[in-house]
């Protein structure tokens, strides 16, 4: 219980600690201690602003996911650059509705973010029942392919990472 109160979000504590060290560009003992203190204190201070419990089942998958997204971003940019610099009349933009399987808000948020950062898609709206994500695509050849790709590459890993709650 005490631990629970001390570390309401252990992952966050870890991330903050890392961020502190990154910010200071230093791994001196002083900063390690100070960073730890802050990494404990700030989550404690802000715990009430995190009503959802974020439970991560497979932390390593999260890392993998991040790396995959980074890779996708690289690809996406090349694709978008081509689309942008190419002739506009070839573009077939459109809105599509993506049916979500994710239910956790954090998961949905991350997915939406990922979609926006990756090839030719921007997540524009979430339906009221949180079941559909409205996505604008810069160029649509095959809707179902896009949906399938999103599901395969992003939503499925996220489903595995985050426990639904």
């Amino acid at each position, binding site marked *: 219980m005490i631990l629970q109160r001390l570390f309401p979000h252990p992952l*966050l504590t870890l*991330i*903050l600690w890392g*961020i*502190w060290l990154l*910010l*200071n560009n230093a791994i*001196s*003992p*002083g900063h390690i*201690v*100070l960073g730890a203190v*802050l990494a404990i204190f*700030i*989550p404690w*201070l*802000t715990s*009430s*602003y*995190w009503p959802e419990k974020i439970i991560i089942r497979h932390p390593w998958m999260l890392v993998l996911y991040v790396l995959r997204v980074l890779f996708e971003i690289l690809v996406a940019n090349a694709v978008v650059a081509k689309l942008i610099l190419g002739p506009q009349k070839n573009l077939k933009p459109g809105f599509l509705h993506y049916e979500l399987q994710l239910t956790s*808000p*954090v998961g*949905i*948020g991350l997915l*939406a*973010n990922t979609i926006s950062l990756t090839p030719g898609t921007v*997540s524009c709206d*979430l339906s*009221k029942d*949180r079941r559909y994500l409205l996505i604008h695509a810069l160029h649509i050849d095959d809707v179902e392919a896009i949906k399938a790709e999103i599901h395969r590459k992003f939503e499925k890993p996220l489903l595995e990472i985050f426990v639904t709650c």
Partner: protein
Amino acid sequence: MSLLSFNLPLVALLPFAAAPIAAWATRYNRLASAWVAGLTTLLTLAILFPSIQTIFSGETIIQQWSWLPSIGFNIAFRLDGLALLFALLILLIGLLIIVYARYYLSAKDSMGRFYAYMLMFMGSMLGIVLSENLLQLVVFWELTSITSFLLISYWQHRQDARQGARMALAVTGAGGLALLGGVLLLGHIVGSYELTQVLASGDLIRGHDLYLPTLLLILLGVFTKSAQFPFHFWLPHAMAAPTPVSAYLHSATMVKAGIFLLARFFPALSGTPEWSWLVGTAGMLTLLIGAYVALFKHDLKGLLAYSTLSHLGLITLLFGFGSQMALVAAIFHIINHATFKGSLFMVAGIIDHESGSRDMRKLNGLFKMMPHTAMLAMIAAAAMAGVPLLNGFLSKEMFFEQAISASDTTLAAWTIPALVTLAAIFSVAYSLRFIHDVFFNGEPIDLPKTPHEPPRFMKIPVDILVVLCLIVGVAPMLLIGPILSVAVAASLQAPAPEFSLAIWHGFNLPLMMSFIALVLGVAVYTVRHRLFAWHDRCLHGIEGKAVFDWLQWKTIRFAKKVTDYFDQTTLQPSVSWVIGGALVLSILTFFQFNSPLLGDRALMEADIITILMALILIVASLLTAALHHQRLTSLITIGVVGLVVALGFVKFSAPDLALTQLSVEVVTIVLLLLALFFLPQHTPQERSYIRFTRDGIISISAAVAVFLLSMAVLSREYSSIANFFIENAKPGGGGTNVVNVILVDFRGFDTLGEIVVLALAGLGVFAMLEGLKLAAPTKDVEGLEWSHDPHPPIMQTLTRLLFPLMLMVAVYIFLRGHNLPGGGFIAGLIASVALISQYLANGIDWTNERLRTDMHRIMWLGLLIATGTGVVSMLLSYPFLTTAFTYLTWPVVGKFEVASAIAFDLGVFLVVVGATVMILVELGKLSHAAHFINVEDIK
């Protein structure tokens, strides 16, 4: 110290001291105040009495005390013959008036107020005549204006009383101010405000460049007070006062103050053509106008008022003649006029009191009903008309004589004698009218009361004065000789000339003139009805009051015009004046000097990116101005301006500024958006092209001026105190970020003030928004309903995720501030923005539920910490805000710095968070509340 060394100030001040007692005494007994006033007057006389002997021996008593030596303003009193004469007139006639008024005032009138005012007025008059210091004289002079205002407006419920009083105050007050100017000049010329010195410096004064302005200013004072043409018009309107007041003010006192001044300054100012012309002309005109108009007044007091004018003109004219014998005549007539006019006013009062009317067309045949009063009136009026064996005759003879001798020398022969005779004719006529119309001439018409003799004591003051008229008329030398002699000597500041006040001087020209006046006067009276008709037809309505009113109305209208021109309670002209004024003043000043616009400092080459950014900034600024009608768009363009300015700070070596600018920018946009919700989305077009042109000119001028100013400085070399900061930041302040060390250490006091400003802004906003209600628009500017999704979930989730990260950054920025760019202020803004992001994403209710801290507390805590770090140093005998720092070494952690400046910065941090969050959240609450308000309710 004997009483005789300070009795003169007592004489002047005792009545003032007694005034509140008189006012207060009336609470216990209605007549008590009359007693207080009377006894005070007697006491004052008694205090004055011991000095009289000295005066008759030809000496002058001066009692003075240094008071404001820096400007030569001493408390100085002087008693000489002239002063004594006037003081006695003021006191003795005052005493009679006090007795008379006790019967005159009705039960409704407040005795206390009346006698208090009377006493104050008496004191003021005594002060004038007894002043040795001229500035002190001005003080008493203006006091007579104020107290006479109170007396004239005594019946305050009557509009004519109020108006008359105000007019009297306006005119005599103006004269008083002019007199002040004159006295200042006189003091400047002579080098002293003491009368003794001034009177001894006649030649110096007359020969000085400033003589004419001095004379003019002093005469303005004299003429207004003594109601000389063209300032005569206030006097008749002052008749709205109770009759005892008129009797006092217009026989012996108020109007005589001006005359007194002529006598006083005679040796210093007279003897020049300017004097003769100015004084003589005013006197002559007043004499004629007064005498003429008096005849046509149907009101008893009106007649007496104009007659007073006429006699004052007569005296003034005598002063204008400028000879020593004229002076004798003038002073003699002052005494005579006081006696007969005093008694006539009192008679008029008795008639009014007993019959309820003062209209001579209604008052007829009163002789039968009040023979005693009629007798008194007849004698006094005869004195006024200059009938032999009465005092008025004597001084009038002397006057004629002087008129004749003056015409020999100065003015065209016969003009003066002819004119004064004309005046005398009318004088006889109106005196006759006063008697015949009232006491004879048939039966009374429609009088409110049936007249009968007044109470005995009401007549006694009149008896005394009339008896004096007689005695003086019969045995002038006996009664008047000595005092007249010392008064004249004092006025001349030289031995009085030989004069004789004999009744009979043989058949001479003056007697002829008197005779002509008497005969023609009677003749004029007999044809009065035809004259009345002619006067009504031709000259009716020509009156000084109308001119005065017109002037006053014009002045007020002018004042309103001017005031309205400037003070329109409109903002734009005010701002234009400020900016325009600054421009004009700076430009005019710059060109007074011989400085080139540009200096010779080498300028830097511009690079392409900077040029581009500058262009963007310029275009964005212009767009903000041009597109301000589309408010949201201009908000975005001003966002660009802020961003580019921040980038500029980075470019030019000011990272701290960039950070500050960026964070302020973000908060400002949020703030403006919060406000914009309640403001119209579009600015209506302003129609006026004049305004557009004006604003264009002002803005372009401002732009050009600022450009030149910037270039002027930037192109010049300078040497500053900067090096000290750079050298001492680390060793003395313990930080390497010099800007931050300046903020928290070298100039920590600025920062303290700055956070107080911020806290006050927060509190001010809090206070302003309390109870403020504004209806929330239900649609946007295009008429579109708002979205139904107040908290988009994706935004919600991610900003919650960001919150701790932002706080971490805030801590980071805070802690490094002392050594690297950052610091409490920026950190505070980041923390605030972190909090605000929660409000934005999750709404007020949700966030407030979690943020249970009252921002007031955060603010005072911050202020307390910041102030406290400063106060601690004081306890160690160091000045406020002295900082200390040291390096500590802890196990594991290692060596680190502890500086009190950090504590100070923490205070800054807290205040920034407290104030910023308070401002934004209070605003947010406003809109929150707005959703529950019906738009119709507000309208």
